[in-house]
Structure formats: structure tokens, C-alpha cells
């Protein structure tokens, strides 16, 4: 079989399922490639290595490329051009992922199999793996691009190691690919630990408060991993194997008590990573204090690995219907409702904590915790639309959060601060960044026409149709908090009075602006035409055995109320158009004035007078709701630490006895008493 770059490109383009209009573009690519393939060097070396690459299993190719990225970053990460190289490599990984075609084909198993101590590890890609891998590599791609230029120069100048950053990112991506492709419990745990520690590396890179947050993260993450390992041991003790097939059989044969234990162990392990209540305290600081581009990657995908675990085990293997049969004794609740309420509280509490933040990074990171709640809530509803909404929100939220954090770090890059009380009025200096943030917050708040609206609408709708009005109210309360806090975000950064020290601030550099604008376009497109993303979600649902959402290009069709975003956005745009027509067509009696061409209370203003204060936003609201939850979970955390401390103190006391022989004599007496 003759393989040439031309055929590869053909395959890739076929895999993309592009509309017909792209044929012309493809033709240009093909022609330019034909020039390359006719050269002598190509026929000598390129042909062979390409054939080898094509001959590989697509999943192996993906793993190999990812490992190659890691290796190259380890070797060349110090070079100035490493950033560009990383972008290209992540692009190649993305292409390799597209070529697996597992989304619409059968699952593909990797040929790599490791057998250790009678246990075998292997990996396989199916629709779910593809979905998460796509988000991961996409996030890595935009992150690497964002970091490639001016950002990395600044990072180096601050005395940080570029290589460490590149390696941490590549390791995160590689670990995540291994995790989502895991086909048995061992490979799952291997991938889990790899991602956990790679995230730790990324968080701890800059030191200072980041290192403190990373240590806290580590305490949570390793406890979660040990819970997970305990759960794996429980499954192994019943099924006698780590294979998923045996696991499903083992879970089917478990008694209710065993399933409860499993749910607590595995669920606890995953909840820590997802940042569910009451394990959410580590996340905001750890993500916010990571180096800027790293924070983007972490915020977009890393917390979702907990959700991935929940999808695989709790939704896929235990099943929502089994959850409904597990009643909590002496209450009316089933375990499914318990999880749903935890998800709802996870939406509300962190979102209102976000409202209190004065640091833009923290504000967004706290939101990330809350948004995880929507995903879990959708999945726990378990019907076609709800679970599709939960899954779709993973994708929508990833692009939204990436765009938002990029915008915020672009502001940090230019002004040197993320403190919301030290910023303001930047819209005149950074209009494109403002636009990105605007798109992002509309999507985050779940308002049309952006992507976030589609997935949140689906979750709300399923909550109502499946008869969970209280949870619906909780979700809406959470959204209210989101709207309030994102308004604070955009207002305090971009609106209001421009500070004197920010007069000279310029628009974000192009290397950072391109991925930001690209993501913004994606946010709008995924809201305008949610069909493609819904088609992926539908495949994942089919894979998991959930009811499949009836999707069309513009949204969903359903007798109980569908959604067509193309119509909706069309009407919205028409409304804007009419508005603009009215505003500009009939006179448009407005005049641009300088910001200081104004007066207040009879005084003319000067640049050094602050006539617009944004400190202590929503003071009244905080006064009202603050006492209800403030510090409750910190108290829990602190009391746990104090308990650990007390136990350690006791243990150390045993080693500080005045007479070491005393313990020995006691041991001898105890043992002999036990023996006889």
C-alpha cells in the first residue's frame, strides 16, 4: 500500500467530517505537499518513517507522540524555540487523536501491554476516552501557544525554568492520555497518579504561595488516591481481577453494604479531584497560584479527571439505576439524591465564595469548583438530555475557563496584578482582551448565545422534566451567584476609571491574543451550532449505556421542548440589529467624551481622584449570607489537621519514653499473655 503525506492528509480531512466548502483549502494543502513528496530526500528517508508511523495502531501513535513530546521537552525545553516546538507537537497529537476515529468507530486497544506480578496493564480508546483526550490535547495546545511567545520570555526573566514548565505540561498531557485510555483498574491508577503528580509539579513550579497551595493539594490528592486504592483493593478482593469486565461482574454481585463502601471509597477519591464539597478547599489556591499558562491548563481540564472517574465507575459501572436503589437508612434519600445534593451544594457554596474574592485568578478558580457541580448534577439526573448536558458542559466549560483565565493572565502580563481593587478601565487599552473576557463571562454565566448556555439549559431542563424542582432552584441560585461575580470581574478590570499607572498599558501581545481569540470564536460557535459537540456527547452516551440525546445541528429536538440555537441566535442578532438600527439610524445623539470630562458633586475630577470605588463589592449581600457558611469547611479542615497532629504527638511520645526498656518489657508481657 502506497502511503504518502497526501493520503494521510486525505484521511485526516475525511476524519474531520468537514463541510464541503473546505475542499478548496484541502486542494491547496495537497498541492503544496505534492512538491515535498517529489523531492529526493523525502523518497529516501521520509517515506520510510512515515510508513512506519502509519503502520502503527492509531492509539500507539498517539501515545508515542505524547511520549515524544515529553522527551523533546526534557531535552530541548531550555531552548527559546521550545515553545513553538511544543505547539507543533501538541498539534500533531491532536491530528493523531483525530486519526484514531474511535468516536464513530469501534474502540481501539493499544498494543502496549505490561505484565507485572501477574497483573496486566493495558489501554484502549473509546468514545469517552476520545472526548476527554480531545479536551486535554486541545487545552495543552492553546496553553502551549499562549505560553510560546511573550509570556515565556517574561517567565524566564523572572528566573523560572522554561524547561520545567514545558516538561510539566507535557507530563500532564501524557498522564491524562494514559488515564482516559485506561482499560483496567491498574492502568487507571497509574494514569491517575501520574496526572496527580504532574499537576503537583505544575502548581509548585514558581514556589512561594503556589508551593504552599501545592502542598495542600498534595495532602488532599494523595489521600484521595489512597481512598481510590482502597476501593480498587475492595473490588479486587471480590472480583479477583483488575480487568474492567471482571469489575463490572464483581459490582453486580456486590451486596448493598459493599456497594456503599465502594461508593464512599471511590467516590471520595474522585470527589477530592473534582473538588466536591467538603473536599474543595485545596483547589482554588492551587489552580490560581500556578504559573499563568499552567493555570489555564489546570483550570480547563485537570479537575475533570475526577469527573472522568465518576463517569467510568459510578455512572458507567455501578449505574444510576443501582444508585437509586441504595437508600440511606432512616431518610427518604437514595444515594443518587445524596450525590445530586452534594453537587448542588458544590455549585452554590464555592460560587458565593468566588463572589468574595478580590483576586481575579481566585475568583475564576473558585468558579471552576462550582461548575464541576453542574456536570455532576446533569449526570446524576441520568436522562438523555441531563447527562448530555453534564458531558457537554465539560467541553463548554473547558473552552470558557481557558479563555477567561487567558484574558485575566493577559491583564496580569500587562499590568502585573490580578487584584480586582487595583484595576479598572482597561477596556480602552485592551479592547480585544475585553472582548474575550466578555464572551467568556457570558458563557460562564450560562446566557445565550454562548456555549455555556446550551449545556446549562440542558441540565436545568432535565431537572424540571425529571421532577427535581428543588435541585433546579439550587442550580439557579448558583447561576445567580455566577452572574453577580462575573459582573464584578469584568467591571473591576475593564470598566470604570482607568488608573493612572495603567495609562501606558498596551493590548496583549499577539502570541497570547491568537489563542484567546480562537477560543472566543469557538465559544460562540459552540453556542451557535452545538450540533458537532452534541454528536460527540451522543456517542459517549451510547458507549456508557445511557439514553442518547436526540441532537440536530442547532440543538436538540424533543416533544417536551427542544432547543434550536441557530434560530435563537438568529433572533437575538436580529434584535441587536434592530436595536442598532434604532440607535444609530435615528440620529445616534451621542458624543465621545474623555473619561475625566465629568464632574461629581459639583467638583471637576482629576486623574488622581478615585471617583469610582469597587472595593467590597456586594457588601450587603455578603452581610446577609456570609454567616451561613463562612469558615464551616475551614473549621473541618483545621480540626482534621489538629487530630492528625494530636495522633502524631502521641506516636512521638511513645518514642520519647524515659526508659526504652519499659516498652520492651511491656511488649514481652503482652505477647506472652496473648500466647498463653
Amino acid at each position, binding site marked *: 500500500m502506497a502511503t504518502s503525506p497526501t493520503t494521510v492528509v486525505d484521511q485526516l480531512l475525511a476524519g474531520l467530517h468537514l463541510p464541503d466548502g473546505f475542499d478548496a483549502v484541502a486542494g491547496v494543502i495537497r498541492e503544496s505537499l505534492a512538491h515535498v513528496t517529489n523531492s529526493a530526500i523525502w523518497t529516501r528517508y521520509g517515506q520510510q518513517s512515515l510508513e512506519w508511523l502509519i503502520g502503527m495502531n492509531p492509539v500507539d501513535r498517539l501515545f508515542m507522540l505524547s511520549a515524544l513530546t515529553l522527551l523533546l521537552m526534557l531535552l530541548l525545553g531550555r531552548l527559546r524555540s521550545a515553545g513553538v516546538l511544543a505547539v507543533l507537537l501538541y498539534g500533531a497529537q491532536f491530528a493523531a487523536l483525530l486519526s484514531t476515529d474511535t468516536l464513530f468507530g469501534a474502540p481501539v486497544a493499544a498494543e502496549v501491554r505490561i505484565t507485572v506480578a501477574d497483573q496486566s496493564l493495558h489501554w484502549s480508546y473509546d468514545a469517552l476516552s476520545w472526548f476527554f483526550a480531545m479536551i486535554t490535547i486541545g487545552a495543552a495546545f492553546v496553553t502551549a501557544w499562549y505560553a510560546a511567545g511573550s509570556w515565556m520570555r517574561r517567565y524566564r526573566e523572572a528566573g523560572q525554568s522554561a524547561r520545567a514548565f514545558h516538561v510539566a505540561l507535557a507530563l500532564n498531557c501524557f498522564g491524562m492520555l494514559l488515564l482516559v485510555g485506561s482499560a483496567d483498574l491498574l492502568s487507571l491508577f497509574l494514569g491517575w497518579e501520574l496526572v496527580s503528580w504532574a499537576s503537583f509539579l505544575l502548581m509548585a513550579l514558581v514556589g512561594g504561595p503556589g508551593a504552599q497551595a501545592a502542598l495542600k493539594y498534595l495532602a488532599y490528592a494523595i489521600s484521595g488516591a489512597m481512598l481510590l486504592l482502597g476501593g480498587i483493593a475492595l473490588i479486587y478482593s471480590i472480583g479477583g481481577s483488575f480487568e474492567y469486565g471482571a469489575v463490572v461482574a464483581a459490582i453486580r454481585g456486590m451486596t448493598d453494604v459493599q456497594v456503599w463502601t465502594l461508593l464512599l471509597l471511590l467516590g471520595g477519591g474522585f470527589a477530592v479531584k473534582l473538588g466536591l464539597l467538603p473536599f474543595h478547599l485545596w483547589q482554588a489556591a492551587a489552580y490560581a497560584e500556578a504559573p499563568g499558562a499552567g493555570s489555564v491548563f489546570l483550570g480547563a481540564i485537570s479537575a475533570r479527571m475526577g469527573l472522568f472517574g465518576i463517569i467510568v465507575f459510578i455512572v458507567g459501572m455501578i449505574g444510576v439505576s443501582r444508585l437509586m436503589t441504595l437508600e440511606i437508612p432512616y431518610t427518604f434519600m437514595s444515594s443518587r439524591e445524596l450525590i445530586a445534593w452534594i453537587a448542588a451544594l458544590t455549585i452554590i457554596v464555592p460560587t458565593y465564595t468566588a463572589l468574595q474574592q478580590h483576586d481575579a485568578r481566585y475568583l475564576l478558580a473558585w468558579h471552576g469548583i462550582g461548575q464541576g457541580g453542574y456536570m455532576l448534577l446533569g449526570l446524576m439526573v441520568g436522562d438523555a438530555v441531563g447527562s448530555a448536558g453534564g458531558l457537554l458542559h465539560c467541553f463548554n466549560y473547558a473552552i470558557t475557563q481557558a479563555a477567561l483565565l487567558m484574558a485575566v493572565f493577559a491583564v496580569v502580563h500587562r499590568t502585573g496584578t490580578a487584584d480586582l481593587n487595583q484595576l479598572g478601565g482597561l477596556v480602552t487599552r485592551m479592547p480585544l482582551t475585553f472582548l474575550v473576557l466578555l464572551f467568556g463571562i457570558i458563557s460562564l454565566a450560562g446566557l445565550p448565545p454562548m456555549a455555556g448556555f446550551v449545556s446549562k439549559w440542558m441540565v436545568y431542563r432535565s431537572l424540571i422534566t425529571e421532577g427535581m424542582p428543588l435541585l433546579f432552584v439550587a442550580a439557579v441560585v448558583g447561576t445567580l451567584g455566577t452572574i453577580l461575580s462575573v459582573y464584578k470581574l469584568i467591571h473591576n478590570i475593564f470598566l470604570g476609571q482607568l488608573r493612572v499607572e495603567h495609562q501606558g498599558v498596551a493590548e496583549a501581545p499577539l502570541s497570547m491574543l491568537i489563542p484567546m481569540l480562537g477560543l472566543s470564536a469557538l465559544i460562540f460557535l459552540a453556542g451557535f451550532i452545538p450540533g458537532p459537540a452534541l454528536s460527540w456527547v451522543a456517542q459517549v452516551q451510547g458507549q456508557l449505556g445511557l439514553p442518547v440525546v436526540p441532537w440536530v445541528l442547532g440543538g436538540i429536538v424533543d416533544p417536551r421542548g427542544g432547543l434550536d440555537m441557530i434560530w435563537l441566535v438568529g433572533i437575538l442578532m436580529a434584535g441587536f440589529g434592530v436595536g442598532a438600527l434604532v440607535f444609530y439610524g435615528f440620529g445616534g445623539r451621542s458624543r465621545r467624551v474623555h473619561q475625566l470630562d465629568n464632574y461629581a458633586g459639583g467638583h471637576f475630577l482629576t486623574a488622581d481622584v478615585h471617583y469610582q470605588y469597587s472595593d467590597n463589592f456586594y457588601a450587603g449581600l455578603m452581610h446577609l449570607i456570609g454567616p451561613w457558611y463562612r469558615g464551616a469547611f475551614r473549621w473541618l479542615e*483545621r480540626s482534621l489537621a489538629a487530630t*492528625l497532629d494530636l495522633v502524631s504527638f502521641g506516636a512521638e511520645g511513645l518514642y520519647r519514653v524515659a526508659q526504652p526498656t519499659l516498652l520492651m*518489657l511491656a511488649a514481652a508481657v503482652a505477647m506472652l499473655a496473648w500466647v498463653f
Partner: protein
Amino acid sequence: MIPLTLETVSYAGAVGLVVIGGLGLVICNHLFRMLLALVMAESGANLLLVLTGFRGGAIAPIIGYGPAGAPMVDPLPQVLVLTAIVIGVGVQALAVAVLVRVYRTYGILDMRELRRRMEGEIAVAAGIAAPGSAQVPLGQRPLPPVPDYELVRRSAPVRERGA
């Protein structure tokens, strides 16, 4: 009921010596007394070991000693116990040597006091606060600072003097 023979009494005595020695090690704080307790315990163990080869009415296990075919005591434990005694004496000698050096350095032989000094020295050498000190917060948990009593007294001199 265990019969009260020479053997049982000897066994009980041997075990008793070990127990007394162990208790002495725990109860005494004086290093030399502890050493003596150790010697006692070792004698008990050695006695027990040599008793394992004992047989009532048997002769010494020497070829050509006593009538041929007469029952002999087991020679192996005697060999073992000789070795054990030598080892024990060696360890005791080492203990005495170290003990003398410690006494020359510190001028005391009280176990508790010596241990306190050792911990203090370790802490000073490592540049940390001594373990168990009230100045050290436990782990990561910040304790309220210990009030400086000098300061407290000085800040309220009026009442003291006025009283």
C-alpha cells in the same frame, strides 16, 4: 501442681532473675544500677540455658570420666553458655567503658537528666527547638504565643509594689 524439685526451683530461679533484671532496668535511673540489673538478667538467661542440658544424677560429659555408659548431662548447652557468658561480659565491659566516658563528660549518671541533655544537644546542633518545648507550635497549627512572664510582670508593677 508443679512438683517442687531441684529442677523446677532452678528454672523458676533463672526466670525470676531475668524478670528481676528487667524490672531493675526499668525502675532504676542510675546508670550503674541499670548495668547491674542487666548483669543479673544475663545471669538468669545463662542459668536457664545451662539448665536445659541438665539431667538429674548424670555425670560430667568428659570421656573417661566416671563409669562407661553412665548418663551424662548434655554438653552442648555448656558450650553455648560459655560463649554467651563471654559475649555478655564483653558487652558489659563496653557498657562500663562508655559509662565512664559519659561520667567524665557530664559528671552525672542519672538516666533522665542525661537524656534531657542529649535531646538539648541534638536540638542545638540541628538548630531547632527542643522537642516537647512549649515554644514549638504543634505541626502546622499555630498556638497562641506563650506569654513572656518577665514582660507580664513588668507591665503590671503597680499592683505588685502597691500590695
